[in-house]
């Protein structure tokens, strides 16, 4: 027996006792759901979790044994689910924690489909409205936690789709809910989402997940090109992060990106040594420059610029940079003129390299030498010195693994120095007379009253 609407008073009289009981039960159920949905915004996270799981259990139960009359197309209790969904996509409450919790349900095809449909309609609805940051955040955490685990499906064509609710009998319905359809929805949703104004941290997070979560699941990744190009042009850390996705587009989707290397060249800035994503940047830069078909002037420009940046960088960054540069030179032997050539003059009045030039083709790096690396041979950090000393001899064929030094931090360098076992500790042989009274004390010229 199904009720689409609660029966009116008049009808009630006609009902039998058992049916009355059922009506009463329905009422109780409705009120329970009403309260449970409210609890999704409770301050206590465990209550939130519990109410979410309970609601989803209800969804599942209704999907299996519907309380309304089902049509052929509809087995999923979308009305009930929409209530949950709307609460989760609230304008004012940050629900990102619950979305991570919700991730286990997005593995079901039907749930994912309805999430995407609802989100799609929601976004369409809010297209011309100002949206709150919290709403954007919620949408982002939704998208972040949406997973397409289509791998097993690919191996078994026509394999059973996973549904939380009962599988509908109609083939067309199944088809319309298929993963491909969902991906179409996913693409439009993403493109709509990217039109929102994102704050910096959100922007960075979007870019960070772009290459492995978004691009593979989107129907035509080239749509993302505009967004990525814009982000790449912003500069700083954001362009650093956009680099990866753009590279994937160029590499796999035939994106024609003019001046890619020029822009990459511009990214080489003193800040890269201090950026949070230093390892990622160097890894990617190494990847981009790994082709042996790059022109020598380009490689030389990169090597020279990085070497110049080393003159102001921290020890750990320099260590990475030296390995990077030497690998470049090994990969492109015709760039090794930077370390010395046979026919050149023995003295050069001025470094021909133009640091400020943004075009690697015009910076005259090929005419210069890597004096910077030579300078780093007197660096204070022994690790750096040992690495820099390698230019004294001919470079071999074997490239050093960049991954070994990529995650090096100054803290690790210090620890490494401490752990170094040496036979004997040397100490000064001239006994001191005081804190600031030794022979080669440099403090007296700048400080007074430092000793009492």
């Amino acid at each position, binding site marked *: 027996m199904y009720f689409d609407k609660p029966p009116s008073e008049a009808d009630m009289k006609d009902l039998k006792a058992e049916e009355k009981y059922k009506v009463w039960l329905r009422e109780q159920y409705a009120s329970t759901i009403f309260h449970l949905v409210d609890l999704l915004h409770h301050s206590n996270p465990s209550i939130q979790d519990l109410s979410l799981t309970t609601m989803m259990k209800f969804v599942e139960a209704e999907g299996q044994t519907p309380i309304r009359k089902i049509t052929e197309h509809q087995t999923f209790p979308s009305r009930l689910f929409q209530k949950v969904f709307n609460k989760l996509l609230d304008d004012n409450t940050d629900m990102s924690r619950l979305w991570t919790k919700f991730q286990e349900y997005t593995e079901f095809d039907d749930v994912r489909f309805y999430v995407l449909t609802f989100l799609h309609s929601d976004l369409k609805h809010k297209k011309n409205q100002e949206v709150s940051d919290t709403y954007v955040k919620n949408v982002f955490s939704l998208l972040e936690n949406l997973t397409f685990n289509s791998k097993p499906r690919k191996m078994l064509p026509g394999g059973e789709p996973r549904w939380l609710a009962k599988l509908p009998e109609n083939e067309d319905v199944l088809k319309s809910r298929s993963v491909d359809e969902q991906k179409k929805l996913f693409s439009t949703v993403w493109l709509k989402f990217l039109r929102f104004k994102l704050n910096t941290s959100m922007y960075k997070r979007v870019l960070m997940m772009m290459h492995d979560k978004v691009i593979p699941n989107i129907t035509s990744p080239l749509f993302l090109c505009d967004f990525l190009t814009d982000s790449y042009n912003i500069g700083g850390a954001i362009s650093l992060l956009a680099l990866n996705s753009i590279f994937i587009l160029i590499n796999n989707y035939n994106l024609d990106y003019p001046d890619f290397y020029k822009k990459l060249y511009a990214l080489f800035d003193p800040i890269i040594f*201090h950026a*949070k994503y230093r390892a990622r940047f160097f890894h990617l830069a190494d990847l981009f420059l790994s082709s042996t078909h790059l022109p020598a002037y380009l490689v030389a420009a990169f090597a020279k610029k990085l070497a110049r940046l*080393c*003159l*102001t*960088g*921290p*020890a750990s960054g320099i260590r990475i940079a030296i390995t990077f540069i030497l690998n470049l030179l090994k990969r492109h032997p015709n760039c*090794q003129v930077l*370390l*010395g*050539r046979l026919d*050149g003059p*023995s003295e*050069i009045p001025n470094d021909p390299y133009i640091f400020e030039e943004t075009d690697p083709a015009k910076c005259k790096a090929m005419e210069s*030498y890597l*004096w*910077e690396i*030579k*300078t780093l041979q*007197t*660096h*204070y*950090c*022994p690790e750096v*010195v040992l690495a820099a000393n390698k*230019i*004294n001899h*001919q470079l071999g064929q074997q490239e050093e693994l960049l991954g070994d030094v990529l995650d090096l931090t*100054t*803290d690790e360098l*210090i620890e490494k*120095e*401490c752990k*170094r076992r*040496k*036979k*004997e*500790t*040397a*100490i*000064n*042989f*001239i*006994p*001191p007379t*005081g*804190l600031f*009274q030794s022979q080669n*004390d*440099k*403090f007296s*010229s*700048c*400080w*007074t*009253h*430092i*000793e*009492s």
Partner: protein
Amino acid sequence: MAKKKKNLSDKIRGKNKSGSFKKFNPFEVKINKQKHHVLGKKRTKSEHGAPGISKSKAMKKRAGTLLKEYQGRHKVNKLIDKRIGEKDQNLTLEEKMMQRYALERKNEEKKGSIYSLNEDEDLTHYGQSLSNIEKFDNPVVSDEDEDDDDIKRLKAKIVAEEHFGGFLTKKSDEETQKSFKEKMEEVIALSKKYKSERQSEKNERLEMTEQADKEYKEVMHLLCGLSRSSKSSDNKVEKEAAVTTKADDYDIAVRTLQFEAKGKASDRLKTDEEIAKEEKERLEKLEADRLMRMKGITEEENTSEPRHISADDLFDGFNLNIDKRDKQRAKQSVHFKDGKLAGGDDVLIPKTKKGMKNIEMNDDESDDNEEEGLEEDEESDESDEDDENDENEEDEVDDEENEDNDNKDDNKRDDDDDDDDDGDSDDSYADLESEEEEEKVDDSMLEKKALIKSILKKSENKPLKSRNPKETKEIIEKAKKELPYTFPAPTSYDDWLNLIQGLNATDQVTVVERIQKLYHPSLGEGNKQKLQTFHGFLVQYFGDLALQEPPELELMNKLVLPIYNLTKMSPDNAAEIFQNEIMSRQEEFRQITERKHGRGLYLGLDTLLMLKLVSIIFPTSDFQHKVTTPSLLFMAQMLGQTPLNSERDVIYGLYICNLCLEFIGMSKRFIPEAISFLHGLLFLASKKNPKQLEKVFPPFKPVGDNINLLNMKPPNISKLKAGKLNGCVLLASSATRDSLNNNQIRLNAVSTTVELLLEYTNLYTDLPAFKDIFSPVVNMCSKLPIDMYPADLQEKIAKLQSVLEEGFSKPQKALQVQKNKPIALKMFEPQVEEKWTGKRKKCGGTKEFQQTQKLVHKHKREMKGAVRDIRRDSQFLARHQLKETLERDSDRKRKVKALYSSLANQEGEVRALTKMKKKKY
């Protein structure tokens, strides 16, 4: 004879040959022909072999193992041969049988014992087992003869009276009334009585014999000489000893005279020139070492420990440890008496524990050191601080003195040696005393100290507790006024704080020095350990002093030397201590940085001064050093990761820059962070063009609240003069933001920046990238508001600019790569090795590469072998299967044939019969 020998050797050789050499059929032996014969090369196994034999061997083996497995492949049950020795090839049939038989017997015995009826059957004679008697294990001794007699008597009696109802004897009525039990008890009592009687008799006899022996010995002793008798009896030895100990004064005098040293050998005093020359040579050598370390050349390090230089060393070449006699003497001789080293007097430091007690220092002057002579050695145990007590004690000590007569000789000898020591220690102590007098008591003490002042009093008195109560009172009164001379080595940091509580700076230093001397490693085992822990506390204390309000710079200054001396004593341990101090601070910095998302904070004054201390104690110019390298990295990290938010940060940064300069002053190493930092400071002081962003290096930012931190603020600029920064005030943690926020400090900071840049410029002039390093600095210099600065600062900036410009104009040398030796073409001439060691030359590549190569090779070989084995196995099996099928086939053929033939016979017979029948009809 010769013939015989030859025969023998021949025999042996022949035997050996026949034993080892197996006769091969020459047709079975296959010889692998060698292409080249190499002289001296060992003959390998593979040169010739017997393929037939080895094949048959392999076949046999397979038949034993693989075939068995093959045949039993469908069988589940297994037959295990458990017969003894069946698998043992070495046992002969007979031995096998013997072993089996033995086991069988053993099993039988086990089984049989349950049912055997005559198992315990033992024949006796007179109640004794016959078997025992036969063995003669227990030969009857005369003593026990009686024993047996008694038993016999008893038994006879019992037999007579009891057996057969005792009808053989007549009994009285009383006796008949006794129960059996009573009778038996009687018997037992009787036997016991006999036994005890016998025992006492025996003892008596033993005593008598002993006495007789003794008497005999005495007689013998009288008869023979004394010398013999002393050996024979213990009593004699004791008597003898008593006699010898009663040596009179005369003997003593003779002996002392005998052993008195005749002449006094002494070191020739070196002239001043010689001392200076030696010192110069020493310093030159050390400097050369330093240079080597700076270049990071790891030559064979000297295995000998660095020579310990005592705090009292005058550098006149005299060394306490390398004495004329031996080292042991030196160990004994360090003993403090009246503020002098008086080791010679003290010979009673036989073991370390006792020695520790003995080492006490006396302060007051006593001129009659020599006169007191021998008495003092014991006295030093008793007396402590005062000489006034000496006289009282002398009487007491006299008795004990006797015991030491034997040791006197050594005393005398030691006296001579230690005259020199006395001189040295005298000096140092004089200094110390004068210091104490000169410097006035500093009342500024830590709050903590004041709190535990009472505890301090107690700890002062502690060492006195063991003394006579009579003396203690006097001593306590004195001790209240002055420092104690012995201290327990502090075992924890709180211990140490307690120890120095309530003492002024000078006294604290004195305490440190005294502890250092008290627990000198040469004075006892475990002292080194104590000093090492103490060293840790001292360094920690040094850091804590910097955190005081105001920082106790004076005291810290004085602690430097003791810390240095302790470091010299055990450099490795000290390195560990300093490393821990630095690393704990670095850890703190790291945590702050993590919390603030990569932005650090300048740590307090203690860190700055600790780093300074490191630069004083350890060589900063080394290429790699356990302490200085991490310190330098830490400093650079602070400079590179800390954003500047206030004047305090500027001053701390400047200090660290200055310290960096000191670290690399000799080695001229390049510190990018320092230059970037100084460049950033110039940026903070420069005039900014709001439309154009300056290029600055992290941690500086081209925009922000603090980019005008060092800009001069308008009022009264012109009056100011650029000076030096006041370290004491500015670095202290009390310096607040407001107190630092004035033009004078900004001006001084800029002046210091320029000064430091000048220093760095001087150091780095020879760097190939000099221009690239300093061009941003020149750029920034031109943007400084020079007209606001006083003339001397303007001059300085101009000088900096001119020096830099001059450096820029120098042409840069082109780089040259050292060419590797060209690889020679391969020659066909034989390679001749002049020094052939008999080993194969190592092939190139790293160790790891070689190892992997080796493993790969081994794997290949093993793989080949395994494949071959498998192939042979399958061949063998196939052969066997073929054989089986052939057998089966032939068997079947034979059977079919037999059947056919029998059928043919039958047929023939039938036909014959039918023929017969036809014929009949």
